[in-house]
């Protein structure tokens, strides 16, 4: 029992950077902008955050620097795609590679150097609650922040006026514009907020979960985060489920290695990626018209919940995602 709790708590903790990155990406994609640079900007932010925290000795400054780097990369993407009409995919991809190489080059002096790390901070009182205490309240501040970020993003998107406008930017930018919404300016805003969260996700590795800096420190997490956002249908709760599932799979993979020692580690490490593709394919299969026909033949009491379940799983992308906005 204790062992299971420890494992689950570890899964919640290791998913924290994914939560920051995917929430950032969800915000900008709901506003209609794909930030494909995620993997590179996370690496560059991780490096910058570690370097600043090591030199200044201040964790807060480290995280601020990481957020700033994430913002800056997002700003470049914004200028090139939103203002200058270049393809978001092309710019994002180039930025991903450029930032990766920048982090390798500029980060050379910091490779495998000791540096500050976010201290473990069990919440007094709350951490003594049986089961919930060790599960939720014996982490550090960054991981508590990831727990809080989730409901905040959800509440903002679905229960505030600004959140409604944000979603309109991604679905019907023309309509939003006609109602007086400054589409481009707001897209910039949410792209930058998303970028800042991506930057914090990078620093979450170098200053907390994988302390320090080394070449390609985050091992492709940014690309996974992008896939999880799609897997989660651009909805914060489902995206979060995706993050925790992925973290759980990784922990399961490293465990099954001791059960089946004949199979190399690396095979287990790629298992979650394969599952991700399969799940994406399945979700799209569920969303196809063929499935709708098949569901229609089900007996009535079954049909309703089945249709609702499929509808919940297979949410379409924001209608204007990745498309340039032209003033009418």
């Amino acid at each position, binding site marked *: 029992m204790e062992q299971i709790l420890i494992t689950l708590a570890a899964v919640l903790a290791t998913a924290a950077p994914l939560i920051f990155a995917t929430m950032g990406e969800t915000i900008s994609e709901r506003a209609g902008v*794909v930030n*494909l640079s995620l993997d590179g900007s996370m690496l560059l932010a991780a490096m910058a955050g570690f370097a600043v925290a090591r030199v200044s000795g201040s964790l807060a400054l480290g995280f601020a620097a990481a957020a700033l780097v994430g913002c800056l990369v997002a700003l*470049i993407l914004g*200028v*090139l795609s939103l*203002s*200058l*009409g*270049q*393809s*978001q*995919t*092309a*710019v994002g*991809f*180039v*930025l991903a*590679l*450029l930032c*990766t*190489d*920048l982090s*390798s*080059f*500029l980060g*050379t*002096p910091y490779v495998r150097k000791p540096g500050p790390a976010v201290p473990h901070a069990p919440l007094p009182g709350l951490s003594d609650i049986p089961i919930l205490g060790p599960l939720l309240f014996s982490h550090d501040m960054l991981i508590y922040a990831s727990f809080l970020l989730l409901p905040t993003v959800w509440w903002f998107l679905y229960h505030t006026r600004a959140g409604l406008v944000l979603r309109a930017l991604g679905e019907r930018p023309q309509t939003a514009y006609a109602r007086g919404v400054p589409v481009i300016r707001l897209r910039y805003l949410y792209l930058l907020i998303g970028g800042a969260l991506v930057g914090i996700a990078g620093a979450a590795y170098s200053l907390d979960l994988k302390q320090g800096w080394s070449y390609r420190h985050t091992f*492709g997490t940014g*690309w996974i985060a*992008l*896939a999880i956002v*799609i897997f989660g249908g651009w909805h914060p709760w489902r995206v979060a489920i995706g993050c925790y599932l992925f973290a759980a799979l990784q922990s399961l993979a490293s465990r099954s290695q001791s059960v089946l020692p004949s*199979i*190399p580690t*690396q*095979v287990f*490490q*790629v298992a979650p*990626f*394969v599952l*991700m*593709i399969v799940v*994406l*394919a399945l979700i*799209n*299969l569920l*969303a*196809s018209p063929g499935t709708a026909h098949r569901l229609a033949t089900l007996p009535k009491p079954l049909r309703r919940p089945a249709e609702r379940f499929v509808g919940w799983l297979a949410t379409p*992308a*924001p*209608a*204007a*995602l*990745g*498309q*340039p906005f032209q003033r009418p």
Partner: protein
Amino acid sequence: MIAHDQATPTISEGHTRRSALLIAALALVGALIFTSLVLLSSNVPPLAAYNLIFLGTFSTPTRISDMVMLASPLLLCSCGLTLTFAAGLYNLGIEGQMALGAVAAMIPLRLLPNLPPPLLWVLAFACGAAGGAMWALLVAGLRIRLQVNEIFAGLGLNFLASGIALYLVLGPWRRIGRASSSGTEPLPTDVWLPTFGTLRVAPAAPVIALIILVLIWFAVTRTRWGLELRAVGLNPQAAGRMGIPATRRLAESLAACGALAGIAGAIQVLAVFHQLIPSISSGIGLLALLVVLLIQANPAWVLPIAAAFAIFTTGSLQMSVALGADSSIAGVLQGALVLFALLARGLSGRR
């Protein structure tokens, strides 16, 4: 899935030569200024660094031959990506297609070691092409039948392909006596592609790459198939209404790109590493994506830009010894070139 990207890369046409030159100049100047700032911030003298990046390759015949052996697979991958970009696809799965091509090329080399080498080479190239094409068709199937965006299908399959290569290196194809993640048992020297004397350049590799480059240039610019491919890339719906089998063209471009990437993988096995290593693609596929983005998939520019990128990468390898800096600066320069080219295109008001 991500909605169809309106600003997909397509072959540039109808632009005046002068503005194209202006864009190239702006991209070069911007990238050089940016890279110089990066170098200065790491206390590396820019002039010495550029001397290595631009001219370091030409210091010894060995380095020139290394550059040719990098440029050949890079050319092949760029040729393949020219097709997928023309069709409006971002084939990020090219790294995996190259790795699977290398794995497939290893199969005849391991199973039939007693065949005469020329026959083995043909078999290895054929298997490599088939392996790469198969891996690319997985992306095509996911994209066409199941609407999984090709970027994510490709990326996921890249991870899977590197997992397969690692598994083979550490498992069934491990070195006798000691399993090491550094690679399989080296191939017997008589099946290596023949080289010039003691240099590492195998003339067959650049020759194959150049022949394929000409074929691709012809296919894209001079055939109906190429025209249809570009039509699908510009507007799949409209192309479909004109009677072009759009999904078929998408699948064909991906399969052809995968086959070329697979041949590049076979070159890596037969002429560069002489064994299967886990990172057999060495990032060449990603570099090819940068090449193709820079030239907007115009096949006429593939050769000069791919050669230039190979020169930068080979030259910068000496950075750590000569200047104590990381060789990733070549990647910074290459990425910055593409980024500033996009900026210049945006400023000049064209897509």
